[in-house]
């Protein structure tokens, strides 16, 4: 796009963001403050992820953008267009074909490879925010690795409900040191972060924080020996592709309680559907 630098941000800003990313990779799970810029998209709509993506994109990259697991949700379309316009790079909806995947609220079902980077959009990077409002205070808690407050919260959940009631944005320990918000992905996706082959980068634009999980790093959901971490998933199979291992969206079909459960990862679902058709054709 004329009048703007490659991928929108000027090179000075990209350099500042890359430095923050390098620091974040060096200290897995630690939130690194950065001089976040106003983006032409609103805060809360992925400005952190967009800045991280803009800083790491090169002309040969292939970008995939998903929101709620889908490539065709309006915000995913809008962000993908933004980069197609400002960087002129190739985009894709296929997880396997992408070198950079920017996501909001999901991790793709297809396992990611070492040559891929996943960029998470993060609304509230501070995992302790709901327990302690002051960021000056939480910073100190991280410095001292003082996470008792979160354990107490989980314990109280078990005492009240018999199990931990956090179903998304489930707090994790990264590399045995920092408590981290995995962004609001469902707890179902949390185990995918553990020792993932791909580099995981997290950008929070409004809160001006970047953090990272280097490849093959330990990521453990916080839990107790007698109350281990549990996944939540609708018990059904996907109504379109029959998958029983994917995260499902519940679609309301009518006003009489009719429901259809379908894969939230549209690329995964479409891939399985076309595979099925091939099998049917072969049979």
């Amino acid at each position, binding site marked *: 796009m004329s009048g*703007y630098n490659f991928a929108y941000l*000027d090179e000075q800003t990209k350099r500042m963001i890359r430095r923050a990313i390098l620091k974040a990779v060096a200290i897995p799970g630690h939130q690194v*403050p*950065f*001089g976040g*810029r*106003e*983006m*032409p998209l*609103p*805060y*809360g*709509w992925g400005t952190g992820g967009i800045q991280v993506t803009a800083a790491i994109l090169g002309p040969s990259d292939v970008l995939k953008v998903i929101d*709620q*697991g*889908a490539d*065709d*949700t*309006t*915000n995913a*379309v*809008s962000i993908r*267009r933004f980069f197609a316009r400002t960087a002129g790079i190739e985009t894709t909806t296929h997880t396997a074909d992408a070198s950079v995947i920017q996501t*909001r*609220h999901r991790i793709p079902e297809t396992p990611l490879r070492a040559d891929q980077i996943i960029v998470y959009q993060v*609304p509230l990077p501070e995992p302790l925010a709901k327990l302690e*409002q*002051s*960021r*000056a205070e939480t910073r100190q808690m991280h410095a001292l690795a003082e996470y008792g407050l979160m354990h107490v919260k989980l314990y109280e959940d078990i005492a009240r*409900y*018999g*199990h931990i*009631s956090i*179903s*998304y*944005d489930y707090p994790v320990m990264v590399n045995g040191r920092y408590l981290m918000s995995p962004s*609001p*992905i*469902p*707890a*179902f996706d949390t185990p995918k972060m553990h020792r993932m082959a791909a580099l995981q980068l997290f950008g929070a634009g*409004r809160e*001006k*924080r970047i953090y990272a999980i280097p490849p093959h790093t330990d990521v453990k959901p916080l839990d107790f020996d007698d109350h281990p971490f549990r996944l*939540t*998933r*609708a018990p059904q199979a996907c*109504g*379109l592709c029959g998958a029983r291992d994917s*995260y*499902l*969206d*519940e*679609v309301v*079909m*009518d006003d009489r309680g*009719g429901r259809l459960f379908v894969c*939230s990862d*549209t690329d995964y679902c479409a891939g399985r559907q076309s595979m099925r058709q091939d099998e049917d054709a072969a049979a």
Partner: protein
Amino acid sequence: MAYVAVKGGERAIDAAHDWLARARRGDRSLPEIGTAQIASQLGRAVDRVMAEGSCYDPDLAALAIKQAQGDLIEAAFLLRAYRTTLPRFAHSEPVETDAMLLRRRISAIYKDLPGGQVLGPTYDYTHRLLDFALAAESLEVTPLPLAAASSEDTPRVTALLDQEGLIEPSGVSTEAEPGDLTRDALAFPAERDVRLQSLARGDEGFLLALGYSTQRGYGNNHPFVGEIRVGEVAVELVPPELGFPITIGTITLTECEMVNQFSGSKTEPPQFTRGYGLCFGHSERRAMGMALVDRAMRAEELGENATAPAQDIEFVLSHCDNIEATGFVEHLKLPHYVDFQSELETIRRMRATATAATVATETEA
């Protein structure tokens, strides 16, 4: 009904933008509004957008207002997003409001004072009666003859108090480079330079409400308007190859100095203290709100008991930016069905457990 995957996001976005453009233009039988008209006739709106957009450019602010259909927060956002792409080639010298070409200057604490009270263009004493004559187009106002503006510096009201030693000294200027939250992430505890920068571009309504809350007892600091001045100041720059300042233009500023009662603390003697407000354009409401909140946030520094929202630096600074606030509030419109789905499963499980427990108790009984 068959399940239809929500495809066609791209077409929907294009159609929405097209509709928006038509809605913006309004009734085509009426002439289109020009940005020059907005800049010249909706000056207060332009001033607000420049302040919150953190960019002094009346023409661009007018364009943003037109593009945003008069939604001033949206317009400030447009201006900010533009501003952040501009290169920084120099810093101006600090502007000198002592040498302001005054359009308005009032003090509420002295009846008369050197430099005089200058009422200027104010709504303060207008009767708020709808002026139906304004609805008629092409109304010509016969101007009164203008008196020549004084070119002499007007002394500050707070300086008069300072002569008697009744007010704390104004902030000490240091050689240290002032903080800049447009370049560095806000960190707590935040110093006064960064706090003032944050307030100067903060949401006018938020500053107003917080300032108001201090008056109603949530962190009261007994304010008096020492002085408000509105006018033009020169912006000067020292080009390295010249080594002396040259004027690159003038900007309109509103400055408010509040004088606040203070009964003293363990470390400070009883004296008046200061709250400071400064903003682009003509906006006394913003400058006053800012000055009240600035003083409230100094509670801890002055050894006061900081208990009210306006005195909580983290609370104020984290929430005064309306571009951030509107983004995060409005992002709730984005799809959240993945998280909602996991909440559905969790609440179903919790209800099943609760129902089973109730049934078990009833059977026992």
